[in-house]
C-alpha cells in the first residue's frame, strides 16, 4: 500500500497525457491520431489506448506516407493497426505529387520531408479532422519548446508562434471555427529518456530498426544514411556495411542512423543516457538546414 501517495515520474507523465487525450476526444468532433511508427507515436498510441479502455480507440490513425519508408516500419504499422482494430488513413505524398499539389525536389539532397506538409494539410481538410494528435516533445527542439500542448492552426494550417493561446493549469481552450484545427501534443513534457523508459516499463514493441542491425550505409554531412534509391548516393560517397540503429524514424532519404551495438532495450537506454548529441542533431538532416529550420516548417503546418 502506498501511504505517502507518491507517483513515479512516468506515472505522473502518463496521468497528465491521458488527461489531455480525454479532454480532446471529449471536446472535438473528429480527432485523428498521427502515427509514424516511430517510438514517440508508439507511446502515444499506447496512451490513447489506455485512456479509453476497455472501449476501443475512439479515433482513426493517420500515417503520412512519403513513399520513402523503411519497410520494417510499414510492416510494424500494419501489424499494430490490425491488433488494435483501428481505422488507418494513409495520406500519400506520392499522390500529392501525382495530382500536382506539390513538385518533387530534385538533386542530391532532394527529400520529401517538406512535401509532407501539403499532404498532411490536404488530408486533414479532406477528412474534416479538427484535432490531430502528434507525438512531438518540447525537449526535441527550440521552436517546439515554445509550442502549446493544444496548438491552434488557422484555416491554412499555419502556426503563428506570436499569437499562441496561453495555457494555464490543465484547462485547454478547444474552441475553433470551421476549417481551423488544432494539433495536440500529449507528450509535450516527456523527454527522450522518459519515452524509452516507458517503452521498457510497458514492454512496448518497436520497429526493428531501433535496435542495432547490419546495414549498408554511407556518410553525408557527418550522418550515416541508408543506401537506398531515395538517398541518391553520389560516387564520392562510398557505401559500407555497419552495425547501426535509428534514434528517430522519419523519411528514409534524410534520417540518419547511429553506429551502435545496442541490440536490446536495456542497451539502447544505456547508450542514450551517455550520449552527448541531441536526437535531432544527430539523425535529422531536415533540422540541420539552419537554426530556424523547424520553426519555418512548423509555421507552414508541419507536424
Amino acid at each position: 500500500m502506498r501511504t505517502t501517495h507518491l507517483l513515479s515520474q512516468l506515472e505522473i507523465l502518463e496521468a497528465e497525457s491521458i488527461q489531455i487525450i480525454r479532454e480532446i476526444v471529449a471536446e472535438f468532433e473528429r480527432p485523428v491520431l498521427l502515427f509514424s511508427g516511430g517510438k514517440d507515436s508508439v507511446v502515444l498510441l499506447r496512451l490513447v489506448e489506455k485512456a479509453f479502455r476497455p472501449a476501443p480507440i475512439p479515433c482513426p490513425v493517420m500515417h503520412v506516407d512519403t513513399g520513402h519508408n523503411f519497410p520494417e516500419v510499414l510492416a510494424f504499422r500494419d501489424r499494430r493497426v490490425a491488433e488494435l482494430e483501428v481505422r488507418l488513413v494513409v495520406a500519400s505524398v506520392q499522390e500529392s505529387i501525382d495530382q500536382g499539389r506539390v513538385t518533387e525536389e530534385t538533386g542530391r539532397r532532394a527529400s520529401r520531408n517538406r512535401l509532407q506538409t501539403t499532404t498532411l494539410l490536404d488530408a486533414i481538410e479532406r477528412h474534416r479532422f479538427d484535432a490531430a494528435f502528434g507525438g512531438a516533445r518540447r525537449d526535441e527542439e527550440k521552436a517546439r519548446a515554445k509550442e502549446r500542448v493544444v496548438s491552434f492552426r488557422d484555416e491554412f494550417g499555419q502556426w503563428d508562434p506570436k499569437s499562441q493561446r496561453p495555457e494555464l493549469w490543465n484547462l485547454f481552450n478547444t474552441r475553433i471555427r470551421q476549417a481551423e484545427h488544432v494539433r495536440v501534443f500529449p507528450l509535450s513534457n516527456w523527454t527522450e529518456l522518459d519515452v524509452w523508459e516507458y517503452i521498457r516499463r510497458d514492454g512496448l514493441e518497436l520497429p526493428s530498426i531501433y535496435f542495432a542491425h547490419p546495414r549498408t550505409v554511407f556518410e553525408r554531412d557527418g550522418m550515416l544514411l541508408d543506401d537506398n534509391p531515395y538517398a541518391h548516393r553520389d560516387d564520392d560517397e562510398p557505401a559500407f556495411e555497419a552495425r547501426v540503429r535509428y534514434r528517430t524514424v522519419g523519411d528514409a532519404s534524410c534520417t540518419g542512423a547511429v553506429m551502435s551495438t545496442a541490440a536490446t532495450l536495456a542497451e539502447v537506454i544505456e547508450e542514450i543516457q551517455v550520449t552527448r548529441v541531441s536526437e535531432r542533431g544527430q539523425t535529422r538532416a531536415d533540422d540541420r538546414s539552419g537554426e530556424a529550420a523547424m520553426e519555418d516548417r512548423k509555421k507552414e503546418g508541419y507536424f
Partner: protein
Amino acid sequence: MNVTKRMGILRFATAGSVDDGKSTLIGRLLYDSKSIFEDQLAAVERTSAERGEEYADLALLTDGLRAEREQGITIDVAYRYFATPRRSFVIADTPGHLQYTRNMVTGASGADLAIVLVDARKGVLEQSRRHAFLTTLLRVPHLVVAVNKMDLVGYDEAGYERIKDEFTAFATRLDIGDLTFVPISALHGDNVVERSVNMPWYDGPSLLHHLEHVHIVSDRNLIDVRFPVQYVIRPHKSDDPGLHDYRGYAGQVAGGVLRPGDEVVHLGSGLTTTITHIDGPDGPVPEAFPPMSVTLRLADDIDISRGDMIARPNNRPETAQDLEAMVCWLTADRPLSPRMKLLVKHTTSTAKALVKELRYRLDVNTLHRDEHAGGLELNEVGRISLRVTRPLFVDDYARNRLTGAFILIDEATNATVGAGMIIGPRSGR
C-alpha cells in the same frame, strides 16, 4: 541512474527583470546537470563567437524563436527539461518585461515553485515585488529569491542581508507559504549546483540542492475529494457480454483520495452511491489521488456526464452561479469591462458568463486597489464578480488550485482572454 526509480517532477517558473541573469541561470542549470548536448553547445559557441563574445553565452541556449533571437529578448513562455538522479525538473521560463505579466501568470499556474531573480547591485525593484506578488496570486507553494551577480558586489554578506530584509518586509504583506533566499552567481556558478567557496558566510543549501529536496508532496490537496468527470466510457461491444454493462467515469483526480467502497455524491443531482472499482491506466487500483487519471465505476446507475463532479457526501464543493474571482487579463484585443459576456472554462465544464462588476483593479507593483477603474487592460489584475449561466462546482483557489481556477474565452475570437482564481465569499452582491 534509472528514471523509473527517480521520484516525482518539480515544476518551477523563473522570473526576473531583463538582464537579471535568468537565461544565464537556466543555461547553467542545464549545463551543470549535463542536459546540454554537444551539438547544442557547439551552436551556442558558434553564435557567441560570431557576436564577438569571449565565452560561450549560456543564455543563448534558451532563445527559442527567431524573433526572440533577433530582438535578443524572450517573448513567450518556453519549457525546458533537466534531471538529476533525485528529481526531474520542468522549467517554465517566463520573460520578465512588465508587459509580460501574462506569461508569468501562465508559467506560474502549474508551478510547484518559483525562482525570482534579484540583481545584487540593484536590490529589490518594483519588478521583484511584482513577481513575488504574482507568485502568491497564483498560489505557487514555494518561492525562492535568488540574489544574483554576487560576484559583482564582492560576495558581500551585508548587501545580501539588506536585500533579504527588504524582501522579507515586503513579503509580510503577501501570503507566501515558503520563502527561501540563496545568494548566487549564475555566471560563475556560485551556489547554483555546488556550495560557493566565495561565500563561506552562507550556510544554506545550493539552489539546485534546494530544488532537489524541497518538499512538494503535501502541496496537493489530499483531503477534499474532487473528481471532475471528463468522459464517460461505454464500450458498446455487443460481442463481449462482459462489457455490455460497463460504464466508467473517466477523469483526473483534482483532490482527495478515493477508494473502492467509498460513498460518494454526484453533483449536480445530489444522489449518493458507492465506488465499486477504480481503473487505472494498467488495471484496477486500490486508491486514486491527484494527479492520477482514472476511471470510476459506481454501484448505481446515475445519469452522469462530462462537466459533473464527484465528491464526498459530507465534503462537497460549493455549487455556485455567482463567482467572486481575481482575474488577470491576457489580451490586448479589448479590455475586460462590466457587462461583458464571455465563456468560462472551469474543470471540465464550459458555460457562458457575464461580468457583473469590476470591484477593483489591483496595482501589481504597489498592491493599491483602484475601485474606480472602468476596465482591465492586457496584463492587469483585478477582482470581478461573474454570473454564470449554469451552476459550477467550485472551491476557493486557495484551497484547491484545480477546482478554484478557470479561464475566460472570448466567443468572438476564441482567444483565451483571462485567467481566474475563485475567492470567497460568493454572495450575489
